[in-house]
């Protein structure tokens, strides 16, 4: 479904990774490990389509991303470093506009059930500004049990989440994979009970020749 062909990324003259080729099939979870600053977030932003500044190709359902952009958008859920949650709005209002943006309509009842699953039962009407950082992230993560996106791209979802939250999140990931979903995740956490279909890659192993700060001479005609 999602195939990367010799993907390479360079930011501010620093080669983050190069010729990263991998194929993610339905029912698989790809865990990307790497030290801070090794380009994990950049890779996820490239996969999500937020950044088009990369070498190589990304194929979705066999075709190049640029050809199937709309379909790719419809079937992708992206969770970034900062949870896209408005402080002045309540969790319910936040989930409404986020679902609307993803072209999904959710009934009040579905939203309340999702919030309940992330332990935000009593907090539905509290403006998110008054919630803790962990709770705010859980409001964003509550979307996971609501969205129909096939491909989940999650950037460090386990940070600032308590033990109970971690268990819930792992169960959601497991359920998503079992019904042929796909997950790309960056996390330092060892995913215990879904080790069956987990594929791990370390970003440092794709960093290209060490100390290669000399670029090919006649290359570089393009931005």
């Amino acid at each position: 479904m999602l195939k990367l062909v010799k993907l390479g990324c360079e930011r501010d003259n620093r080669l983050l990774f190069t010729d990263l080729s991998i194929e993610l099939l339905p029912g698989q979870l790809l865990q990307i490990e790497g030290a801070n600053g090794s380009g994990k977030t950049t890779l996820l932003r490239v996969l999500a389509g937020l950044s088009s500044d990369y070498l190589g190709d990304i194929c979705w359902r066999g075709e190049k991303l640029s050809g199937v952009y709309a379909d790719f958008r419809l079937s992708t859920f992206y969770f970034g470093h900062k949870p896209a949650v408005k402080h002045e709005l309540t969790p319910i209002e936040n989930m409404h506009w986020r679902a609307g943006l993803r072209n999904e309509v959710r009934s009040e009842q579905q939203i309340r059930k999702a919030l309940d699953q992330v332990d935000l039962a009593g907090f539905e009407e509290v403006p998110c500004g008054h919630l803790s950082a962990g709770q705010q992230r859980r409001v964003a993560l509550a979307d996971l049990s609501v969205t129909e996106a096939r491909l989940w791209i999650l950037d460090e979802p386990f940070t600032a989440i308590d033990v109970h939250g971690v268990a819930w999140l792992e169960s959601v990931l497991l359920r998503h994979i079992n019904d042929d979903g796909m997950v790309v995740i960056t996390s330092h956490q060892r995913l215990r009970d879904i080790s069956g279909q987990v594929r791990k890659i370390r970003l440092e192993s794709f960093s290209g020749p060490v100390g290669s700060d000399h670029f090919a001479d006649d290359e570089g005609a393009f931005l």
Partner: protein
Amino acid sequence: MSEGHLRGRQVFFSIIKRDLMLAFRTPGQVVNPVAFYLMVASLFPLGIAPDKALLSQLAGGIVWIGALLAVLLSLDSLFRSDQEDGSLDQLLLSPHPLPLLALAKVAAHWLATGLALILTAPLLALMLHLPTQAFPALMLSLLLGTPLMSLVGGIGAALTVRVQRGGVLLTLLSLPLYVPVLIFGTGAVQSAVDGMEYTGHLLWLGALLMTGLCLAPLAIAASLRVVVDG
């Protein structure tokens, strides 16, 4: 996909509803530009002269320039608040066309600030002794002008969304583009003051507004894609 399918129109209004909720939950977002507008306009009589004859000549220009600066002041937070809490990424990742969402953001900004300025404009015009026969011209020209300011300023806001202290840069980028709006707007008020026909000015302002409605969202979407890409 499930039956819960949204057409563009519904997303457009849901973004506007969200932004208006945000605006009214943080009253500062609506009140500050209006307060700024009142203050700027009352500086002129202090700075120049309080006498009626002079002020009535300058009133149209002062009211318009004040509105222009107030809109610019409030535009800085148009995309910045979304950028800071990560919702700008969600906006870009939506399957709905980005120009449509950009237009929704600008429309929400206009409803929150532009309308408030239009409602306070008569008060200022009174304070500045604007001849009464020019009031309709002032209101109509502001009604056409303020959305145009939000549209054009939106481009600058999108370009400077990730620039620290980008407020001044936003003004620098947007002011040259405001010149035609200002010229036709104040022109309408001035010819109304002189008792002449002013519909020509308003027609030009309307034409500029239509162009802005078509082109500005595209430019805002392009700018957002470029700036967030970095």
